[in-house]
C-alpha cells in the first residue's frame, strides 16, 4: 500500500540558516504532493504543493523539490526564522485521489 515517511523526525537549525526537510513516498503513481506546516496548538496549514510533471516549485522562502526516480520530496526553507518552528508534514493522494495520506511529520526547531 501507499506510505509516506520522513527521514528525520526532528531538525534543529540556527536562525538565518537554510532548512531542508525530507520525505519519501512509495506510490510511484502519485501525481500530486503537498507540504503542510503545523504550529503548536493549531491545525495544519498549506505551504506549497507540486505536481508530478514538475521537479521544482518555489514559493516565498520555500522550495519543494521532487525526485520521481527515487520517490523523494524535500522542502527547503531559506533564511529560517523563529516563526518557522513547527511540525512539517508531506502528504500524497490516496485511494485514487479520494483523500491524502500524511507522513508522521518532522519537527523543526529554530535556534537563536
Amino acid at each position: 500500500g501507499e506510505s509516506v515517511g520522513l527521514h528525520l523526525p526532528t531538525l534543529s537549525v540556527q536562525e538565518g540558516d537554510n532548512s531542508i526537510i525530507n520525505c519519501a513516498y512509495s506510490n510511484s503513481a502519485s501525481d500530486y504532493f503537498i507540504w503542510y506546516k503545523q504550529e503548536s496548538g493549531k491545525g495544519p496549514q498549506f505551504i506549497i504543493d507540486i505536481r508530478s510533471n514538475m521537479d521544482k516549485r518555489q514559493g516565498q522562502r520555500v522550495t519543494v523539490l521532487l525526485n520521481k526516480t527515487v520517490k523523494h520530496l524535500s522542502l527547503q526553507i531559506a533564511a529560517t526564522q523563529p516563526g518557522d518552528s513547527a511540525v512539517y508534514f508531506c502528504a500524497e493522494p490516496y485511494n485514487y485521489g479520494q483523500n491524502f495520506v500524511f507522513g508522521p511529520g518532522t519537527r523543526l526547531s529554530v535556534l537563536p
Partner: protein
Amino acid sequence: IAGITQAPTSQILAAGRRMTLRCTQDMRHNAMYWYRQDLGLGLRLIHYSNTAGTTGKGEVPDGYSVSRANTDDFPLTLASAVPSQTSVYFCASSETMNTEAFFGQGTRLTVV
C-alpha cells in the same frame, strides 16, 4: 473571516457516552474530512465526504460515524466513546478532492 470552525475546542468525556464533534465551513468547499492526530502516528483519516449527501470511510472509521446533510456541516459522532478515542480531532475541507485542504483548529477529546 472565512474558514472552518470546530466545536468544542476540548472535551472530557466518560467512556460509553455519545458525543458529536461539530464542524462548519463557509468556503462552499465540496469535500470535507475528519482526521485524528495521535503522537507518533501523524494524521489519520477517519471519514470523508466528496460532496453533500455522500460520505466514505477512511483509514480508521470504526467507532465513528458522519453525515453530510448540506455543504457547510460535517459532524462526527462517537456512538459509545472508548479511551482509545482520546485524541485531537481535525476537520478539514477542500474545494474538490485532491486539492489542498484547509484545517480547523482541532478538538482535543479525552475519554476517561
